[in-house]
């Protein structure tokens, strides 16, 4: 029994860690009022950049830094388009996603099948994930920068009236989101799969967008959401490995069924937690 619990928990952490970084990335972006459907692409650019850095330097820490910066810079393309050019966030996000898929495949074409050392046994990204969620919670709740980012997400006109430039704060938030998205990708390529292959995120960027809603835009609930979802993946694979007589097709739906069940039970008394100006573009004041 203890062995089973340990197996499930380690599986939940392995599957859940990249999801948690990605969810936190999307959460910061959305708390600043910007929906980023391009997270999948950001993760892929991070995953391939980290892999290339690990291949050439052999250093996991260099690889993580490179992946984070690559994600951050790539997300600035999105930020420029939706903030400066005022492009539609959803359409731009999807375009960024496809761009990231293509760019990462192009960057990684020589590295498919390459061998790297990857992250160490005691994976710093795993240990860092939950404290990071706590840190983000604290930053958004108690620091001047965090409160201003939230103010921009709720009502950019009011933030502007209070002397803040909403676009500057949104650029900052989106850069931080890009860093975290890049780390999410790096954990996948360096820690979990230890290989690079095209579109290896396999939809995790979109699951993260859903997990933000699931967590009702709260960083600590995001920890629960990512671990629950990762745990459900681990549980279904582990049930197969134990020979539980249920069709693998039904077991494959388990993470999604579980998420639906939690959403159904969790609704009701809670107030709607979405940032007030989510998805809108601050046009400046007359």
């Amino acid at each position, binding site marked *: 029994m203890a062995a089973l619990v340990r197996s499930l928990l*380690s599986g939940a952490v392995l599957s859940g860690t990249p999801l948690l970084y990605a969810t936190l990335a999307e959460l910061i972006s959305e708390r600043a009022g910007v929906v980023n459907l391009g997270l999948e692409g950001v993760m892929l650019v991070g995953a391939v950049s980290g892999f290339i850095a690990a291949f050439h330097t052999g250093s996991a820490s260099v690889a993580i830094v490179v992946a984070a910066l690559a994600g951050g810079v790539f997300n600035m393309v999105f930020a420029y388009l939706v903030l400066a050019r005022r492009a539609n966030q959803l359409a731009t996000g999807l375009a960024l996603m496809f761009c990231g898929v293509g760019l990462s495949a192009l960057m990684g074409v020589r590295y498919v099948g390459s061998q790297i050392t990857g992250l160490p046994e005691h994976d710093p990204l795993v240990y860092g994930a939950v404290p990071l969620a706590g840190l983000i919670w604290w930053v958004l709740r108690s620091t001047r920068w965090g409160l201003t980012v939230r103010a921009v997400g709720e009502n950019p006109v009011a933030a502007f009236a209070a002397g803040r430039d909403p676009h500057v704060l949104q650029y900052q938030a989106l850069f931080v989101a890009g860093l975290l998205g890049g780390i999410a990708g790096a954990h996948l390529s360096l820690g979990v799969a230890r290989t690079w292959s095209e*579109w290896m995120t396999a939809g995790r960027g979109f699951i993260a967008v859903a997990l933000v809603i699931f967590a009702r835009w709260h960083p600590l609930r995001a920890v629960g959401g990512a671990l629950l979802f990762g745990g459900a993946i681990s549980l279904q694979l582990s049930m*197969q490995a134990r020979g539980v007589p249920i069709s693998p097709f039904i077991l494959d739906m388990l993470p999604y069924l579980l998420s639906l069940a939690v959403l159904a039970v969790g609704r009701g008394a809670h107030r709607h937690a979405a940032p007030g100006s989510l998805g809108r573009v601050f046009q400046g004041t007359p």
Partner: protein
Amino acid sequence: MSRSLVAILSTIAVIAVAATGEPADPKLKVGVVHLGSVNDGGYNQAHADGIAVMKKNLPEVEVIQVENVAEGADAERVMENMIRQGARLIFAASFGYLEPALRVAQKYPDVKFVHPGGYKRLPNVTTYWASTPEAFYLMGMAAGKTTKTNKIGYVVALPISFFLANVNAFELGARAVNPKVETRVVFTGTFLDRGKEATAANALLDQGVDVLGVIVDSPITVVQVAEKRNAYAVGFHSLAAQKFAPKGWITGVAFTWGNLYTRFARQVMEGTFKSENILGSLKDDFLTLAPFGPAVPADAVGVVNTRKDEFAAGKAHPFQGPLRDNKGVERVKAGEAFPLTDLAKMDWLVEGVIGQPR
């Protein structure tokens, strides 16, 4: 001196005659369409390695290769583009390219097409595949001799009949040398999710398996998880996987298409190409067993090689009855064998395999 000069001159003359006798450019251009990357250590690399062997055998052949081509309209466009560049033989190297290849083949009846695993043909389309169960049976024998826990795990993309047949053959081979072996199967439901493959591999190792096998596009992730956790690994698709498990490597089966691809190119150049459905196996050298790793006991090698010769001679069959499935239903009667040409109908897992076939 003068004699060799004469020889050279006469050779040139012969070539000149041949060249004038045949107005078409004797050099052949071939187009190769890949679903993924040619260095994936897996399915795509096996095709690309085959093309490389063909190119070495026939240096006069020019090759256009395109990677990462989606199945469907993209594949059609790429093939037509290759034909416009002068390709007269197209390797449509993924199962899902069958319909696109057939459509393009209808449009260009003078261009020849070859397709792996196809079940439909045209006068200018040949299909070919290598029957894998015998090789999986032999891998199972080697793994059955190597395992210490008598538990083997398989990470498989989807429960489709050809994959079930491979797992069944593997378990039967393992049991032939070690009756206590059980094989646990986990289906990930996808070909491209490396994260899920790693989680599945770990879940199997947590159940006490000490050998991991894999049927997805690229075996790299699962083989690495096995090595990292001091378990053994068997590979699939390409021989390149071995470097990821220097300690725990048992063996693997790889597609070695080189000689067949050389044959196709030669047929097109000589004008002898005809539409065929080719099914080969170990004895036709469409498949090769990878060299055994250091973990395999010495007596296993002899047993495996003996059975390999018996397969080649037709004296043994991987699905020799009587066989029951893992729910106790009799599937193959005593004295009969499940025909290797009927693998598409194998929708059950054999006794000793723990898993759900659907």
